[in-house]
């Protein structure tokens, strides 16, 4: 039984780690701006495309990786300044529509540049190699992802809890106006939040595309949505919540894909039910249940409405 289930859990943990890195971007931005940054998934995809083009133009890989991360963070910064900052005092719906507009723009730009064809992601040595763990063969990156995720999250939590900028972030997310009155430069704090969020999305893109190797303009949409669901699931605004949520969603989704065979082997069903069809839908069903039962997610704080 264990041999049947373990590979799914392994895939789930790997996917979960990638979702977690994307989800942190969502949760931090939401925590401060109360904005669903719909373009976040597309920034993740753009990071992949930058890598493809940079490697193709002959830049050595060891230089590509840091460059991609810096450029991605820069894109996050620019998007915030161009598309969200002018709308800071506008209704929330306007900012959200602007986010959808940015997402649309990024996708179309990439469609134009690539001609709508799948781009092959460069092979990064070592993490692309195969390895065997508890009888299941997989890429090294599958094992590296969750470890790297945890390390980055611990570092981030330290940053938020023990540095001056972290304190400013917490203050801004608690009360926008008061923190402004206290002399915090809100725009800087928000920019730094975006830079951190997109930087992590850049890391996620390297891990994700090393695993799945092709990038196309729509590559970011689904992972982005799922990462957002993970953030909501864990309680939006909470970083550990987003990480836990991401792992749960990653594992659940992969188990659904294998549910037919698992149930069959357990003797519950006599034949395939086609349940794998619901691997994406399940994520959203989970979201709706969570929102209906506990609207603030697993680790979310209770928010009272300001009138």
């Amino acid at each position, binding site marked *: 039984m264990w041999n049947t289930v373990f590979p799914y859990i392994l895939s789930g943990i790997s996917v979960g780690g990638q979702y977690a890195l994307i989800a942190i971007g969502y949760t931090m931005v939401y925590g401060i701006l109360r904005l669903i940054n719909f373009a976040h998934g597309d920034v993740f995809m753009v990071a992949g495309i930058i890598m493809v083009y940079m490697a193709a133009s002959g830049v050595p890989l060891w230089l590509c990786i840091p460059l991609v991360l810096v450029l991605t963070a820069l894109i996050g910064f620019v998007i915030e300044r161009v598309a969200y900052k002018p709308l800071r005092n506008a209704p929330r719906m306007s900012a959200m529509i602007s986010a959808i507009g940015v997402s649309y723009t990024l996708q179309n730009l990439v469609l134009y540049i690539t001609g*709508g*064809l799948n781009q092959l992601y460069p092979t990064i040595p070592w993490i692309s190699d195969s390895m065997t763990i508890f009888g299941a063969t*997989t890429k090294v990156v599958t094992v590296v992802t969750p470890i790297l995720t945890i390390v980055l999250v611990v570092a981030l939590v330290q940053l938020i809890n023990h540095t001056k900028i972290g304190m400013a972030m917490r203050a801004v997310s608690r009360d926008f106006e008061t923190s402004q009155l206290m002399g915090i430069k809100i725009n800087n704090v928000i920019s730094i939040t975006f830079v951190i969020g997109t930087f992590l999305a850049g890391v996620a893109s390297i891990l994700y595309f090393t695993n*799945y190797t092709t990038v196309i303009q729509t590559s970011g949409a689904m992972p982005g949505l799922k990462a957002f669901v993970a953030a909501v699931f864990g309680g939006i605004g909470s970083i550990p919540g987003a990480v836990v949520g991401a792992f749960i969603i990653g594992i659940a989704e992969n188990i659904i894909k294998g549910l037919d065979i698992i149930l069959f082997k357990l003797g519950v069903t006599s034949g395939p039910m086609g349940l794998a069809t619901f*691997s994406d839908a399940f994520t959203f069903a989970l979201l709706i249940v969570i929102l209906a039962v506990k609207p603030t997610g697993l680790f979310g704080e209770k928010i009272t409405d300001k009138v």
Partner: protein
Amino acid sequence: MKKVLAIVLAMMLVLSAAAMAETVKIGVFEPASGDNGAGGKQEILGMQYANKETPTVEIGGTTYDVELVYADNGSDTTKAPSAASSLVDAGVSVVLGSYGSGVSIAGSDIFKNAGIPVIGVTCTNPQVTEGNTHYFRICFTDPFQGPVLANYAYNTLGATTVYCLGELGNDYDQGLIKYFVDPFTALGGTPIQESFPTGTSDFTSYLTNAANYGAQVLFCPVSIAYATQIIQQAASQGVGFTLLGGDTLDSNVVAEATKGTKVELTVTTFYQEGANPDFDAGFKAWLNEDSEALTNNGGNDIISAVSIMGYDAYYTALEALKAAGSTAPADVMATLPSVVYDGVSGHIEFNETGDAKRDSAVVKKANTETGDWEFVTTQTVE
């Protein structure tokens, strides 16, 4: 202001439809983007090469320039009607395409209502031509290809359990799997069918499923984009089963993905490089001269069967135009059923549903050392 702009745009479209003299237009209804973009581009290459080779045609005593008019259906059934309309609007005499059965079916009615004949190049689903008088096709169909694959899996590969994986909502994948499953079951094998949602990039769990079901063969007649990912993930998971695919997998991009791995991949297709050396040499020379064509072919000069099919489709269209003696779509449609043409891919002649009478498929295998295709056998169904 914007309204004025919109009206001007609409006017320009209408005006651009005004036909030019002495030119016959052939519509190219192919995906140049999306999941099937790579395949569509290779199919177009065949037509472009043919067009370069024979840029004029004599119709009713007058020499016409042949102009290819392109419409990108984006591998998307919702975009197909608009793409088809733009070809109709451009005033084409006959349409070639598409790569992918779903988009062909989705665009079919637009051509039907406009009375324009279409020559399907590699759309193998029977629903494309069924019940239509305007849709023809020069390739074999899935009810032929499915049993060939089933026989090959059961008899040659010795598989008793086959895991069939297709994309949800893709008519080609689902259709070919159905036509594979029935004869395979009849032979005594056990097929297992599963589908993945559009946009999936993580196939590891599906590969695990195949292993857990104890499948000896993974049958995945999917788009090139998915096929390369399945191959690479199968390679890193070190799977013990053979991969089997239909005509869509016959692309140098797919063969290249197996390079340096231990993945065994076999496909059925229309043509194998080397069957017509003259054509091969000419086509390769053209590819190597034209850098854009080479890029569209996936960066090397290995010939894909779909390019040959595109080439033959172009000449079939020319034959029809010549026989019709007119550029009117209705005349071309009336003569198409009787058109006979001996192409690079073989003899082309249509039956009463408009399908080419084809009785053989080429089976080939990916060479994991060179990343090229190797001829295995020609399978014929009596």
